[in-house]
């Protein structure tokens, strides 16, 4: 086994794998570490939206970053499909946020108008019930309207994860699953990564370990302001396609199952689901689409979002440990394209990059002061 690499990426989820793949395809010698079969993972539990609308209302640069990634997604999907033969089922038919009641609709219109104030080209429309029903015929009587953004889409995120892992290998990258990184030490100008079974030298290290970044960050001078936020999901049996657009809390997967996910809890136990929350989600989903009522649910789960204090990504290089980078976000699916093809070149070149600089840790220090 090679035990010296130019880049070590800690984390084999969507964020880590996007970065490792982006590095490997640019000819960098990269190793990606992941934990054992069971760990606190976000990538295996996500909702699989490639989503733009509503993001970055208070932080326009994040809105731009999200749009850039959504626009770049088709080429990432095509490239991965060519390489691995796995069809990712990426689509961008435009997405809806359905509103139950006039209050929800008014609030939605206000939020999107504020985005438009920052970005006059911000692409969205508000639809009333009559207009909406033309596109989504099964929509229930309680839905009074919706917002629509043509840039929204979705993908099969599990196949994305698999194809990123395959593509990494095809570009000569090394994957070390079952090798949790326990410690990071200095090693000349690089780093020594200590795992349960041996040490690996890397010149540069990228922390992409989700919630694990909190502990790992402390080894290389980062104080990582992230927390876990639990989201719950249920998925139904497979049925013939009837939802041709993703919605922020309901989508039909390419396999035919309908995913319903509509919760935000401040909790870090991902091993259980809450019956009141599942019931709440089911009630709202049935109000949106009464035809869902008769479908069998085959699975409920919860997963942990990795949320920074302001909810936006963090991209940073350590000031005390140059060559150590921190990458964290809660939109690993949407931002996969930006991470692989925009963030990676910036990391490699080392030159200052205005977009990436905006996502540094300084904004939290300013907030504290």
């Amino acid at each position, binding site marked *: 086994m090679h035990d010296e690499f130019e880049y070590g990426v800690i984390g084999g989820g969507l964020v880590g794998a996007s970065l490792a793949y982006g590095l490997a395809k640019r000819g960098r010698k990269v190793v990606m570490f992941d934990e*054992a*079969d*069971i760990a606190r993972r976000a*990538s*295996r539990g996500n909702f699989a939206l490639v989503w733009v609308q509503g993001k970055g209302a208070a932080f326009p640069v994040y809105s731009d970053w999200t749009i850039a990634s959504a626009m770049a997604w088709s080429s990432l999907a095509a490239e991965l499909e060519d390489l691995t033969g796995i069809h990712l089922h990426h689509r961008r038919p435009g997405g809806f946020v359905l509103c139950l009641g006039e209050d929800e609709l008014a609030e939605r219109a206000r939020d999107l108008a504020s985005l438009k104030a920052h970005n006059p080209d911000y692409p969205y429309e508000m639809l009333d019930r009559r207009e909406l029903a033309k596109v989504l015929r099964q929509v229930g009587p309680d839905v009074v309207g919706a917002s629509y953004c043509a840039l929204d889409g979705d993908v099969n995120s*599990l196949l994305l*994860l*698999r194809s990123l*892992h*395959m593509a990494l*290998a095809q570009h000569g990258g090394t*994957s070390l*699953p*079952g090798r949790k990184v326990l410690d990071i030490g200095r090693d000349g100008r690089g780093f020594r990564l200590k795992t349960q079974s041996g040490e690996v030298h890397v010149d540069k290290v990228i922390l992409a370990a989700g919630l694990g970044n909190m502990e790992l960050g402390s080894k290389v001078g980062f104080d990582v302001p992230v927390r876990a936020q639990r989201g719950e999901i*249920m998925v*139904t*049996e497979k049925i013939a396609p009837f939802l041709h657009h993703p919605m922020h809390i309901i989508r039909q997967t390419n*396999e035919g199952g309908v995913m*319903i996910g509509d919760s935000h809890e401040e909790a870090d136990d991902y*091993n*259980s*689901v809450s*019956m*009141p929350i*599942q*019931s*709440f989600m*089911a*009630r709202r*989903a*049935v109000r949106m689409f009464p035809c*869902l*009522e*008769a*479908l*069998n*649910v*085959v*699975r*409920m*789960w919860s997963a942990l979002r990795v949320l920074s204090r302001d909810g936006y990504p963090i991209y940073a290089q350590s000031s005390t440990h140059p060559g150590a980078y921190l990458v964290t976000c809660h939109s690993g699916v949407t931002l996969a394209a930006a991470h692989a093809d925009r963030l990676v070149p910036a990391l490699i070149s080392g030159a200052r990059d205005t977009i990436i600089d905006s996502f540094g840790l300084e904004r939290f220090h300013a907030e504290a002061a």
Partner: protein
Amino acid sequence: MIGLNSIRELDDRYGLIVIGAGPAGMAAAVEARRHGVGTLVLDENAAVGGQIYRSITATTQKRLAILGKDYAKGAELTEAFAASDAAYLARATVWRLGAEREVAVSHDGVSRLIKADRILVATGAMERPFPVAGWTLPGVMTAGAAQILLKASGAVLGPKTVLAGSGPLLWLLASQYLAAKVPLLAILDTTPKGNLRKAIAHLPGFLTSPYFRKGIGLMARVQRAVPIYSNVENLRAEGYGQLEHVRFRAAGRQHVLSVDHLLLHHGVVPEVNMLRSVGCDLVWDDEQMCWHPVADADGRTSVAGIYVAGDGRAIYGAEAARFGGRRAGLEIAKSLAAVDDATFERTRAEIDKGARPYLRGRIFLDRMFRPRQEHVAPADDAIACRCEEVMGATVRDVATRLKAQGPNQMKAFVRCGMGPCQGRQCSLGITATIAEIRGITPGEVGAYRIRPPLKPIDVGQIAGLETIAEDRH
């Protein structure tokens, strides 16, 4: 028992909820009620008995003659249960068990959440999946399913029926078919040749088991009447759209038999999904080649207030399950201060004495009928996960190339175990395949995490959970 007709008749809370009305569940309920514990039994079937005594309350003399004395024994226990005043809801599906002993139960299209001070999981065993090529073809079913047809409606399959596999139930079903005067085309005994050598040291223990005499007589009767192929390897079911023939290797030769029905069986394993989902610790038992919940002799699991008894704890059969259930019922009564020390000690001694013969010599059976690895880990051209149609070759490829460490990573990569059966049919096979490739034990590989619902349940019932609670208050 007090038979309930509607989910609305359930109380919000019980002293004890028993899940499963097989021998362990019924015996536990009878014992707990004897000491005054408020007890509810929930069971999926239309009548009590579990799988082993299925349809015992509605059987006929003719069927009893075919099914034999051990089946008839179930009547005694079901009568004792009927005479008790435990509450009982039939056709009730428990689809979630929460660590705070909250049970989500569905009946007639309505779901409710109810609570108990103690829960006894008596959900029994399931047949070990037999993932050979063609095992999902119409015409292939398990021996256990064929026996349910016999118990529930006296139906037999014929005329070109083959039994394949190993273990006591295979021979029992064959003898029941003989008693029903239905010919079997052949028995393909897949028991590996070397098993006897590994088991023989434990034969003396087994000689003292009540199952020895029964088993030896039954096998002899079947062997006289049915052609047997021994040491069968590379079993596969083949056919275009439905089963047409079975292909296998025996005594150094390839064989092909033209058949209508193939009944597969190679042992039973505890059904542990409910216990796993609520966070009970499980361990890999290499003798029985399955997961066992960690539990003491009273059935206490690692989660407070949750107990397990019967074949869901470890495979010892119906008689042992009855005693195990009774002992758990007694212990639960004691934990709720419903029984005095003297009665407890006396009753427990009586139970243990009764159970003893049925616990003897099990290791002989485990070793004698240990299944073939090639029939446990799905072959490349066998479907590994029926729900998601994942082939054995895909699982091997991902375990090798992407180095998936365990079944949960495998699930994320290829969707195995994501379907409505919640991995019941593929869990052991996926774990076995990964263990083989990684060169470690199944215990080290681990198993799928189990999520609710344990059985599929419609969105409307989940949406309705809260409103029912509101209606009642």
